[in-house]
């Protein structure tokens, strides 16, 4: 099997699964229980949080463990919207956000919030000037993703962060689900107030994730109850999931340090191969993230290509897995101003540190063969 759909989800590292198993077996006490066994679990929770805060270079009380990207994005956006509605009801986001951001914003529109969906340029990048121009006295939140899940375009988070700093009354949330562990993003002193990370995109387990919440940021929690996670997220902590997440983060950041060059090399090779195949249009800008490559084969239905490659044990995707069940063209590519033909026939290859050059070669050869076969049938 050649797995090239790592932006949909990744293979959990075996170390991560080991951790999950061990913690489930040995530390099943409730961290809130006051007896010694609960205390053990609580100590492990504290250590996990310390380790996570060291790895992310933030402080311990700024990390809230969640169930993943969707929860993180919902907590951040609804949390700010509900807690600060007296200040204003205006939210700024982009047209190319993940559904867990876009749909949350749309839901808020239904109950009286006003949302500006900023356009992107042909490279899939939001303009910093647009962000600044969209800010009004009513604005309480800017939510912009770091790396786009379909296209791999990188948003100017640092610059938007400096704008956000100049407006102390609004908050800035970054969906970092696709970028974490691949494209570095500094949180401390960045103007970022909240940042979403998901476990299963970084070789962790489904149902794990974290939300960075800068000190003194007031949120209305999605989940009320026993005030776990500094009151931001009630519910008995998923300790095994949490500890396994922190391990996945550590392993991923280590890989980011050691294997970043390798990923860039794979991306180069992939681009080079695809450029030699007739009829392929590469959609991801050259300055995009090196683990995501989006391309189109105008005239071919992407599902057909996916299935044909699937028969050979090669897995890639159309658009993003989260929206691929919705028919028709990619709204994200359309937002970049790409033609209908291109938007309808888009495919995505997404890499992880586990892929190698051989995977790329086999994929390209197979794709070439598939296209040739299909063109015979269709011709």
């Amino acid at each position, binding site marked *: 099997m050649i797995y090239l759909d790592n932006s949909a989800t990744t293979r959990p590292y075996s170390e991560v699964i080991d*951790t999950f198993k*061990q*913690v489930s077996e*040995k530390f099943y006490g409730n961290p809130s229980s*006051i007896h*010694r066994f609960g*205390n053990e679990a*609580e*100590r*492990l929770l*504290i*250590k*996990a949080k310390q*380790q996570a805060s060291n790895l992310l270079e933030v*402080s*311990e*009380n700024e990390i809230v463990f969640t169930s993943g990207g969707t929860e993180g994005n919902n907590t951040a956006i609804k949390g700010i919207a509900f807690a600060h509605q007296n200040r204003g009801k205006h939210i700024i986001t982009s047209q190319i956000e993940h559904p867990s951001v876009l749909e949350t914003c749309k839901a808020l529109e239904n109950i009286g919030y006003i949302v500006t969906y900023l356009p992107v340029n042909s490279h899939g990048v939001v303009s910093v000037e647009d962000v600044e121009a969209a800010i009004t006295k009513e604005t309480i939140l800017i939510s912009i993703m770091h790396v786009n899940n379909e296209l791999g375009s990188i948003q100017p988070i640092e610059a938007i962060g400096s704008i956000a700093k100049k407006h102390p009354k609004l908050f800035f949330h970054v969906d970092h689900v696709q970028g974490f562990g691949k494209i570095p993003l500094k949180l401390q002193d960045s103007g970022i107030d909240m940042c979403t990370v998901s476990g299963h995109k970084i070789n962790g387990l489904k149902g794990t994730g974290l939300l960075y919440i800068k000190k003194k940021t007031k949120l209305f929690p999605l989940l009320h109850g026993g005030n776990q996670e500094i009151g931001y997220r009630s519910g008995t902590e998923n300790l095994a999931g949490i*500890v396994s997440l*922190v*391990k996945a983060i*550590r392993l991923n950041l280590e890989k980011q340090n050691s294997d970043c060059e390798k990923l860039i090399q794979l991306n180069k090779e992939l681009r080079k191969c695809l450029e030699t195949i007739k009829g392929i249009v590469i959609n991801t800008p050259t300055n995009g993230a090196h683990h995501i490559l989006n391309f189109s084969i105008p005239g071919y239905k992407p599902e057909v290509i996916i299935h044909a490659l699937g028969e050979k044990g090669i897995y890639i995707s159309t658009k993003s897995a989260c929206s691929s069940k919705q028919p028709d063209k990619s709204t994200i590519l359309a937002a970049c101003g790409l033609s209908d033909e291109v938007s309808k026939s888009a495919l995505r290859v997404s890499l992880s540190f586990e892929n190698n050059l051989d995977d790329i070669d086999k994929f390209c050869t197979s794709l070439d063969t598939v296209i040739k076969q299909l063109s015979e049938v269709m011709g």
Partner: protein
Amino acid sequence: MDYDHIIVRYGELALKGRNRKIFTNKLHENVARKLKDHAKIKIKKTRDRMYIILNGEDPNPIIDKCKVIFGIQSLSVAIKVENDPDKIKESALFALREAEKVKTFKITAKRVDKNFPIGSQEFNHVVGGYILSSTTGYTVDVHNPDIELHIEIRNEATYITSKRILGAGGLPVGSSGKTLLLLSGGIDSPVAGYLAMKRGVQIEAIHFHSPPYTSDRAKQKVFDLAEKLTNYGDKIKIHVVPFTKLQQKIHRDIPYGYSMTVMRRMMMKISEQIARNEGILSLTTGESLGQVASQTMESMHAINEVTNYPIIRPLITMDKTEIMHISENINAYEISIRPYEDCCTVFVPASPKTKPKTDKVVYFESNYDYQEEIEEAIKNKETVEITQENNMENEFIDLL
């Protein structure tokens, strides 16, 4: 060419006359321990400063670690070259180009080596002129430059630096002896320990534990606080003293309003005894005048009466907000506010005497004998050594 040195400037220890060597040796020891994971570096100490020779290591993490070491006034990354005007000019140009967001500069040369052929003033012009003629976009501004390039022409070599990073000040930990810190788990005592360390004092800690009234969590909290303090010095030995029996006896024997005062006196007696056994010459507490009932002038007088040992009280005149500010800076605050009972809060009467009379306390105590319980508590103490590494259990390391 690259920045290949870090210059470490001594704090006030540079003023210490004949004892200076004690201080510089201690500082050298502390810096070497803090940087032991950086295998390639070499540390060279001289009379008035220290050099860290990088040998290719990234200076930034090293500077971050050195910033918390007491006894360091300031740090700078430096380029070392021979005392050769051309080489110095090249290096100054490199340093300027390395700096980001810089448009104006100033050269400040200092000639210690009087054999160097060009005087300081003249050399400023020579280097400045060379930089202006080899670049575009830079101008000289002697009053308000974006960057000031320091060129120090010393006898052995020349050092070019551009930025001074402020150190932690104070004296090297271990150069002023050792103290026994009464560490409760609250906000104040870790800050008191930190400030004592700032004046070069090495810390041992004593903690009073009253199971089952206080939990393992309360004990762990104290270990975690001590771990934060190890960041500023060496490992910390903690004596955990079982205090339940004594507390129960006091609770039984002593009139309600005075039990807190007597309890504090017992703590002092035990602390003094342990300090004596360990060869420690002082006690340190987090007391702040007037903060709580046990920290009024009358209370301190009554409590202090049981010991002749000097008691260091670094927080005595500080406001709570100032203390909290330091607590946050040393990353202790988040631990201190974990909500577990400590031994002081368990048996505290609802309204302890804020103005206990010393003679009355002595009288109440004189009806009973606590010596046996005191000795038993000391005998049964548990001693733990906290280092930055061992506070995380091995099984946790594997998991994380």
